[in-house]
């Protein structure tokens, strides 16, 4: 049983003061100022007056910002969906692997995840660019086929793989896949295997067992995997910045340009907080689903 803090006042106060101070002073105050700025106005070059105006939020409803929000949500959603489809079989295979193989497979999933995000994005640029490895292979295959066909295919045109929406989604899936696989594995591993065996024994196929037994049982875990992938994908800055083209800007890129080039901090602050609210809505939804899930199980 936990101790009441009054029984050991000195130690309690010493232990809580450092984390509490750090959290308040170096996290909540910075975010709080941004929140206040989102209701402020630019006065001169560097001064911002807090006027309580909603105009920054209203400005976020002007073209092209709603479109960018929808596009970001859409890109993050597509990324999450692809991660789920690609990651689920992997998580399933890891769950039912023998112990030794299990550790190695988990390590193999985690290693890229530990590698620097910027380096991973840079690696993708080298793969996808016009003179990248994919286009080189394609060029070589094209030349071979063309030789056989006697030049019937015409001139070689490289695939446009970089600086468009495709490369952004590709990059986000590449970066976020481990985020999806690890929570999925963790839920699937806690599942009661005898239920799966029962379903298979009673004549259900693997696919129908998957959808009728595994998915309902692991529902909450799948939801948390979706959320863990969706939130960072929605707020991603580096991937659209380096891999995207002029039309694949996401919310984070707009926020960055408001704070750096456009120097409109109040508007940037409002956009940041819209992103924070979207994140909280996502978390609240997940909490609701989890509660419903628990209620059903009880």
């Amino acid at each position, binding site marked *: 049983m*936990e101790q009441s*803090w009054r029984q050991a006042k000195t*130690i309690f106060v010493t*232990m*809580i003061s*450092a*984390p509490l101070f*750090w*959290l308040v002073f170096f*996290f909540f105050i*910075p*975010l709080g*100022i*941004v929140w206040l*700025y989102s209701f402020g106005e630019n006065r001169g070059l560097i001064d911002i007056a807090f006027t309580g105006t909603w105009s920054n939020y209203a400005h976020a409803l002007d073209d092209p910002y709603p479109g960018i929000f929808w596009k970001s949500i859409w890109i993050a959603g597509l990324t999450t969906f692809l991660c789920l489809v690609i990651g689920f*079989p992997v998580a*399933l*295979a890891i*769950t*039912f*692997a*023998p*112990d030794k*193989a*299990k550790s190695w*497979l988990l390590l193999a999933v985690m*290693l890229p995840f*530990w590698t*620097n*995000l910027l*380096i*991973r*994005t*840079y*690696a993708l*640029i*080298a*793969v996808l660019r016009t*003179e*990248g490895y994919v286009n*080189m292979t394609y060029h070589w295959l094209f030349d071979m086929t063309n030789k056989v066909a006697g030049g019937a295919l015409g001139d070689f045109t490289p695939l446009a793989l970089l600086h468009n929406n495709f490369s952004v989604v590709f990059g986000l899936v*590449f970066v976020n*896949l481990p985020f999806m696989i690890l929570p999925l594995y963790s839920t699937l591993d806690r599942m009661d295997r005898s239920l799966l*065996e029962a379903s*298979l024994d009673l004549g259900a196929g693997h696919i129908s067992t998957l959808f009728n037994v595994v998915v309902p049982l692991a529902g909450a875990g799948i939801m948390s995997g979706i959320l863990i992938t969706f939130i960072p994908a*929605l*707020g991603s*800055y*580096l991937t659209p910045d*380096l891999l995207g083209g002029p039309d694949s800007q996401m919310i*984070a890129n707009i*926020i*960055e340009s408001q704070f750096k080039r456009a120097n409109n*901090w109040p508007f*940037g*602050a409002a956009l*940041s907080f819209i*992103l*924070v609210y979207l*994140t909280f809505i996502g978390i609240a939804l997940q909490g609701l689903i989890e509660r419903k899930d628990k209620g059903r199980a009880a």
Partner: protein
Amino acid sequence: MTSTTAAKVRKIPPGPLEYLRRWPLQAWLVLVGIFLYAPLVSLMAFSFNDSKRNIVWQGFTLKYYVKALNNDSLITAFGNSMTIALCSTVISVVIGAMAAIVLWRFRFVGKTAFNAGLAIPIVVPEICMGVGMLVFFAKVLPWPHNLPWPLDLGNIIIAHVSFSFPFVAVVVRARLASFNRELEEAAKDLGASEFRALMDVVVPHIQPSLIAGGLLAFTLSLDDFVITFFTAGPDTITFPVKVYSMVRFSVTPEVNAASTILIVITVLLTFLALKFQGSGALTAGHGADDK
């Protein structure tokens, strides 16, 4: 790799749940493996390529490593990143462990709020936190210029601790859940002070989680680009920020060489962490022992 050898050893047809031994899943795993690893492996391979254009293999060379190691600003950036990661790790582990122990040990008013508050830095989008730090260090706590090294990195270290220590707290709390409170009470009954009981009984128990949390904090700090990008002034450059400006400029083998060095360091650290925690760390809480 492992899957194929496993299939060869046993010729018995796969059991109903041995998904790893079925070929569609094996093929899927191989494809995902290529997807995750091919870009990184090719990046490392081409750092040894003797060609500026970085496309066709021209022969083995180490000259880009020499070039990267002679690039003073790259070395400075690398040293800065390592210093920041070390300092923020030490602070994060201490503060994170304190938060975890307080939450585990005491009942107090506002506990739920404190607990929720600790979770917020984990979920808030990086860009929002970066913007917060930019504003904070511009308006509230302007970081003086021209401070001697390493004090000029102080603002970045502060920002890194803010997003790392809640992760450490989560890791340590998970470990504390398995601690038998009676042990601490026994120590106190036997005359140990509150502080002694904490340091001699609780801390040894959570030691593996301190190491794991520390490594997590170290990697998070080394990995961070967005928050550093917003926090750092124009004069301080960290490794990711430097690589970012090099990547924007062009794709050169020098960047490949620098990246390869960082990847090797990360892989070594990961293996070191696993050695510290024992091989069961990866399947922690799952694995065979609790089945």
